[in-house]
């Protein structure tokens, strides 16, 4: 029976067959990636190293005094937990077949972080003696947040690229959240003043900017297979 569909199918099957041959021929041994948990720990180690590098510049006595205030140490804890949870979620989302529910993991610590920081809004009324921020200090905070987030994001994106994020924008946004939260946690010892509403706003803008930039550019960087027909050689780049 002359059936055009059959003919089409046979040529398509051939090209799939060729692709299989291409892929098998270009096969090189790969080192299995460690699990997402271990990779998140590695990245957190890098964050810790950055923190240790910055220790000589830190205002430790001020830090001790400020951590005595409950909402500030809750905020710091929230930022640290958010950084780790978001990094873990990003690494989980970069491995095919892991549950998408991992992406929700950073939400509870994020709420803790934002909630505890939000209490700082009331500080102006609760503790009028608190040391409030000057505009140029605020600019310093913003520059610090961006300056620390950027290398942390770059490191995270480079690590995530080794896996295969099927939803690159989600993975990149989670990575951005991790970097921004880590930067905010690192900022705590250098903060020359206590949290206020404007301060919180500056932090929020910085965090959203980092998450957004990661989502925009990181997604493209992570999406190694977006092209409909990238050959195996290119896909490995």
């Amino acid at each position, binding site marked *: 029976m002359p059936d055009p*569909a059959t003919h*089409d*199918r046979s040529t*398509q099957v051939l*090209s*799939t067959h060729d*692709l*299989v*041959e291409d*892929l*098998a*021929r*270009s*096969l*090189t*041994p*790969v*080192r*299995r*990636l460690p*699990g997402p948990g271990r990779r998140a720990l590695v990245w957190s180690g890098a964050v810790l190293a950055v923190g240790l590098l910055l220790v000589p510049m830190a205002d430790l006595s001020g830090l001790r005094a400020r951590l005595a205030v409950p909402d500030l140490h809750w905020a710091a804890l929230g930022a640290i937990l958010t950084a780790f949870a978001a990094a873990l979620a990003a690494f989980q989302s*970069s*491995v*095919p*077949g*892991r549950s998408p529910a991992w992406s929700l993991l950073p939400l509870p610590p994020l709420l803790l972080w934002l909630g505890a920081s939000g209490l700082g809004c009331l500080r102006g009324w609760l503790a009028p003696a608190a040391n409030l921020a000057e505009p140029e200090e605020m600019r310093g905070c913003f520059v610090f947040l961006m300056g620390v987030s950027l290398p942390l994001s770059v490191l995270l994106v480079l690590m995530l690229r*080794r*896996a*295969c994020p*099927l*939803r690159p924008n989600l993975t990149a946004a989670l990575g951005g959240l991790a970097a921004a939260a880590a930067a905010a946690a690192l900022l705590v010892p250098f903060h020359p003043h206590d949290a206020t509403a404007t301060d919180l706003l500056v932090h929020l803008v910085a965090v959203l900017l980092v998450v957004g930039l990661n989502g925009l550019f990181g997604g493209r960087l992570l999406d*190694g*297979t977006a092209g*409909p*027909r*990238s050959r*195996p050689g290119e*896909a*490995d780049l």
Partner: protein
Amino acid sequence: MPVRPAALSGEAALSAAMQAAQIGDAAAYRALLRDCVPVISAMARARGVQGAALDDVVQDTLLTLHRARATYDPARPFLPWLRAITQRRAVDALRRKGRRPQEVHEPLAYEARADDGPMPGDDLARCERATILAAAVAHLPEGQREAIEHIALRELSLEETSTLTGRTKGALKVNFHRGLKALRASLSSRKEGTDA
């Protein structure tokens, strides 16, 4: 019966083949990819991909699988990993298709269009054919069986087969042709038998 062990096997064999591929075993990888093609195709069809787009999805999935092969963890089952990749590529394909205008003004042609995917019984028929072939191959004499298995079924070259079995290429060729002849005879007599 050691005829194409990967063809009819389940998840464990796929997982083992993927592990072999991770350390660079091209033959296992080729067999794995071939076995994955119908699986990917079925998964993509379940997501609603049809027609020519199906083949694009299969190929995109194979490319992504190749790129992602370091992320496979042998402690976990293989098929969910493959399904995650396939579903993502299927969704990509459906989105691409959604952006293109579609012909919807010919209801008759639309209704009468044949589904160009495999028919419902195809898997069963393929399975049955494989069993019949396996039985016929198993009845061949030892030398012929080896030649048929390695050269025809596993698609190895003469050199590979000769290093594998320790026989000369000439002997393999002779055995191969005798085996084919015997198979042709036994399978065609079988067919006549069933037809009668």
